[in-house]
């Protein structure tokens, strides 16, 4: 018996079957933080599954004509000029998962560093152009359209336009600032960079797109929930509307529009607490899911 079919089935399940189900489910929007953990567990698990599958396919399983290299050899192809030398095959088998791991880690570092440099450049300019408001805990830029964003990181800034200060009520502005503050304190940029890294490596697969999109949406929901701790649903929802409406004329690409609508319906909708057993169950799921591919191969010793 061979572990490979089990691994392939598992990887397909995590990478192709689970994501569309998760996108359609409605519990993730009720517990966005838990859903984020599940999505990232899924991404990690899929990566592990792919790495182990590659390992098992390349590793000669006891006899010389097993594994991918053996197969190629028996088809008359000389791989690396050495035929199906088991040592070469073993080296390739170890190299494949290592390359994948390095690609993911490298991609994360690349995205995190690039974003950090972009933020630092932006922050220096914001500090020169804007006026620090101690009352708001934000930098105010002279700009008529109500807008807000944040620069997370070690030296964070929350930036609002003076249009927002003028046109939003104190309650609305408070909700917006609290939302941005949640991104900063929650270090959401690192979560985004992780999703971005996964997407770069598996960009051709739908699961990569799902992970990236859902991460962005769920992080917004986490920040919305944080803002609702101290501010009314109405303030947050109307602030969303005011800001979205003020910026429409540009409308070059409305990619995120649906996300704002989903968020607003969620904020305005009746508060639906998650089932009490949901969070522990999700936590358990999130911990076990990435480990399953390892369990499937190593301790059972399926060879």
């Amino acid at each position, binding site marked *: 018996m061979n572990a490979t079919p089990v691994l392939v089935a598992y990887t397909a399940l995590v990478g192709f079957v689970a994501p569309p189900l998760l996108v359609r489910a409605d519990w993730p929007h009720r517990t966005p933080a838990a859903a984020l953990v599940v999505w990232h567990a899924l991404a990690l698990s899929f990566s592990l599954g792919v790495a182990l599958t590659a390992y098992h396919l390349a590793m000669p399983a006891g006899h010389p004509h097993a594994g991918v290299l053996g197969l190629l050899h028996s088809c008359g192809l000389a791989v690396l000029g050495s035929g199906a030398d088991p040592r070469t095959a073993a080296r390739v088998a170890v190299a494949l998962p290592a390359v994948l791991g390095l690609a993911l880690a490298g991609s994360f570092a690349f995205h995190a560093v690039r974003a950090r440099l972009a933020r630092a450049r932006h922050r220096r300019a914001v500090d020169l152009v*804007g006026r620090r408001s101690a009352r708001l805990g934000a930098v105010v830029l002279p700009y008529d359209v109500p807008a807000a964003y944040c620069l997370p990181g070690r030296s964070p800034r929350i930036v609002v336009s003076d249009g927002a200060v003028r046109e939003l009520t104190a309650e609305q502005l408070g909700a917006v600032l609290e939302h941005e503050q949640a991104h900063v304190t929650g270090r959401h940029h690192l979560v985004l960079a992780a999703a971005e890294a996964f997407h770069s490596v598996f960009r051709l697969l739908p699961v990569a797109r799902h992970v990236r999109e859902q991460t962005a949406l769920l992080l917004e929901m986490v920040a919305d929930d944080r803002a609702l701790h101290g501010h009314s649903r109405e303030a947050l929802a109307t602030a969303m509307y005011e800001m979205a409406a003020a910026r429409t004329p*540009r409308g070059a690409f409305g990619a995120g529009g649906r996300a704002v609508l989903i968020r607003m319906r969620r904020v305005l909708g009746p508060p639906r607490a998650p089932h009490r057993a949901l969070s522990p169950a999700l936590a358990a799921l999130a911990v076990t899911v990435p480990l399953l591919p390892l369990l499937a191969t190593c301790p059972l010793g399926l060879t």
Partner: protein
Amino acid sequence: MRRLGELEAEIMDRLWTWNRPATVREVVDDINLTRPVAYTTVMTVTNILYNKGWLLRGKQGRAWLYSPVRSREAYAAALMEDGLGASKDRPAALVHFVENMTEEEVAALRKALRAVGRQAKP
């Protein structure tokens, strides 16, 4: 010792507010109204701003006159566009409150607000 960025901001702030070319001496004198600062320090930092492309300069007699390359509002608009993701290649650098939307999408938002009886400006 204040940070370099703060002095840069003080210099730019004055040049934007005065809205006319000014010498380093004028800037130093104005800052000195609130706190002591050495002429050479301000001159160095002004030079940095010039080299970074924030200031223009021209000679009048023996003194250099400095003025901002663009207005504060022009810089702010460019930063906002950048911050709000008008540039297509937006990495995980900035997180903004709402995305750019189409008119239909904003109409849908308005409908969602109306559905729960909240008032929204048309």
